[in-house]
């Protein structure tokens, strides 16, 4: 009996004839259990309910979606174990260009038409590879990074690992990045680049540098990638993120706007675009995009309270306080209870402006925490705006100081200055800036402990 007899197959294709063709091929190689998914949503639903062993997914899924987007979303929601096989089926050679560039790749892709024999040959190899990496996958899933790295290190020098040399190096770099060792990850990606100029490895260098807050270096690396591989959309996202960190919000928005047009159903990218638009002061775009995300990202659990906060933020920016209030009070009680401090602070700050009667007491109740806790940049900006509006100078100045001292100072600078100007406090903002700068100089000049 074929080793594929016991495997559960899922065929994803929006064309009935092509689905039948794929099923025929799967049955010819011995498969009994072959399920169908006719579109993107259906595929996610089926995979969520019962993860198949082998997914054969057409690259073109209709309705502006692609198999590549599906793969990215499955990985993002952790719906696809490393042990499952994801095989992209494509009539287009252009997919090869995608695979050679991007960071997130399927186990393999196969070009139509193909014979059952060829599919078996490809699947056999993937099975052998999965078997080789079996123990590594287990440690990776448990986030046991040191153990995962130790396995890869041993495999890297083994005879059996020779056919998987690049895969081992690639996995190693990813684990280093995920474990928070961004210097190690940078070195690992640079090592791969010594072999060949792979766009995904160059993007990995940029990502590692971004994590180290080496922004101009990160920028020049990612510029190279985006210029040479325009179809590598994640690289464009990364570039936009780096631009935002550098305070270049107009450029970030432009980049994301261009890519989002090519991937109209990628809501993750739209969220990023809304963020860039917000920072860029383009409230109209931010409002429209977030409304689209909240209404149309139908993936279960995809629309989070943070999305509703982002929508409300853009509505407050646009001075549409009625809509903002509606977005905020639309949050369910159960969601409210699970908000972390960042989200609670943003919620209270935005509500204090859009619905002062309800919002102010809540905002006041959180004030002690806002004066002492470590908070995310967006939350600090929300608090800063409300504190300025309510005349609470101490609270506003505390947020401004924390933001200017933090690693994301450039990202938030424009928005801060704008808010202070709105309330006629430009000079006060400049004074805070000066104090932070002086403190930094003293800090840099102070002798290092033990030196």
């Amino acid at each position, binding site marked *: 009996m074929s080793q594929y007899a016991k495997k559960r197959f899922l065929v994803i294709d929006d064309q009935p004839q092509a689905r039948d063709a794929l099923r025929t091929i799967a*049955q010819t190689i011995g498969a009994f259990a072959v399920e169908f998914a006719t579109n993107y949503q259906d595929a996610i639903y089926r995979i969520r309910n019962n993860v198949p062993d082998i997914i054969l997914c057409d690259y073109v899924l209709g309705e502006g979606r692609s198999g590549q987007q599906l793969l990215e979303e499955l990985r993002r929601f952790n719906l696809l174990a490393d042990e499952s096989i994801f095989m992209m089926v494509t009539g287009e050679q252009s997919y090869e260009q995608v695979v050679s560039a991007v960071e997130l790749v399927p186990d393999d892709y196969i070009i*139509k038409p193909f014979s059952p024999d060829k599919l078996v*040959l490809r699947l056999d190899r993937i099975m052998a590879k999965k078997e080789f990496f079996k123990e590594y996958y287990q440690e990776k899933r448990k986030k046991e990074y040191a153990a995962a790295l130790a396995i890869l290190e041993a495999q890297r020098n083994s005879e059996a690992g020779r056919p998987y040399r*690049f*895969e081992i190096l690639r996995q190693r770099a990813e684990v280093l990045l995920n474990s928070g060792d961004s210097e190690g990850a940078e070195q690992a990606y640079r090592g791969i680049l010594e072999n060949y100029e*792979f766009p995904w490895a160059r993007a990995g260098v940029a990502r590692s540098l971004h994590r180290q807050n080496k922004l101009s270096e990160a920028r020049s690396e990612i510029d190279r990638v985006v210029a040479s591989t325009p179809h590598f959309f994640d690289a464009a996202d990364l570039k936009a993120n780096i631009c935002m960190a550098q305070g270049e919000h107009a450029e970030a928005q432009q980049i994301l706007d261009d890519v989002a047009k090519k991937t109209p159903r990628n809501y993750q990218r739209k969220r990023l675009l809304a963020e860039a638009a917000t920072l860029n002061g383009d409230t109209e775009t931010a409002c429209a995009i977030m409304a689209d995300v909240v209404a149309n990202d139908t993936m279960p659990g995809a629309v989070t309270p943070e999305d509703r906060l982002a929508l409300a933020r853009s509505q407050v920016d646009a001075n549409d306080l009625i809509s903002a209030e509606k977005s905020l009070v639309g949050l369910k009680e159960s969601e409210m209870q699970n908000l972390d401090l960042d989200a609670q602070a943003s919620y209270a700050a935005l509500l204090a402006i859009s619905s002062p009667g309800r919002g102010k007491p809540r905002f006041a109740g959180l004030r002690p925490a806002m004066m002492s806790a470590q908070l995310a940049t967006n939350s600090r900006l929300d608090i800063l705006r409300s504190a300025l509006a309510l005349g609470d100078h101490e609270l506003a100045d505390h947020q401004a100081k924390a933001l200017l001292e933090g690693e994301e100072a450039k990202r938030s600078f424009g928005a801060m200055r704008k808010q202070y100007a709105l309330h006629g406090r430009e000079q006060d903002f400049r004074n805070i800036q000066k104090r932070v700068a002086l403190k930094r100089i003293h800090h840099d000049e102070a002798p290092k402990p033990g030196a």
Partner: protein
Amino acid sequence: MHTLLDVLASGVHDAKNQLFVAESLITAAETQYGVELGEARYAIEAAATRLSRTLAAYTLLREDAQPAITPVIVADLCAEVGLDQKKHLAAAGIELSQSCSVVDEWPLDRDLVTDMLNNAIQNAGRHARSRVHLDARLDAGWLVFSVEDDGPGFATLPPACGTGLTVAHRLAFLHRRQERDGSLHLSNGASLGGARFELRLP
């Protein structure tokens, strides 16, 4: 958006989808009636390959052409070329033998190199008396693929350069790594006595 390339790519894409449906129907018929229709399937795949090759030629000859380089297990690539060609050559009374001494992965454009080797073997098969040999090995930091036959060899050297060869030269050249370019070499008098096709990749 609608450049000539888009129009061509979309047409080729649709045609290949149709060919895939046709091949799966043949596969179903083979199972149902217990017959072997390998040559029919080969003809369909050859038609699809021909379409792809035309599109690839158009793309590669453009100035901004970029190969899609991924790390490829060389032995796997050879096995796949063997699977594509062996039965068909056997039907014509020609034996395809293979040797591959490369264990590691190598960065190359899998689809285009596969197609180039398929093409070289098909050419060799047309002129061979009884044997074609595919070899892959490392030579001083280069990956070397060769296809040899026991036919009469090229009538002239270098042979008249048709579209296929022009594209092959271009593809070899596009494989660039650490300041070294790939290249293509055609010669006579190889170990089997006939023509020799050699692709060197950095």
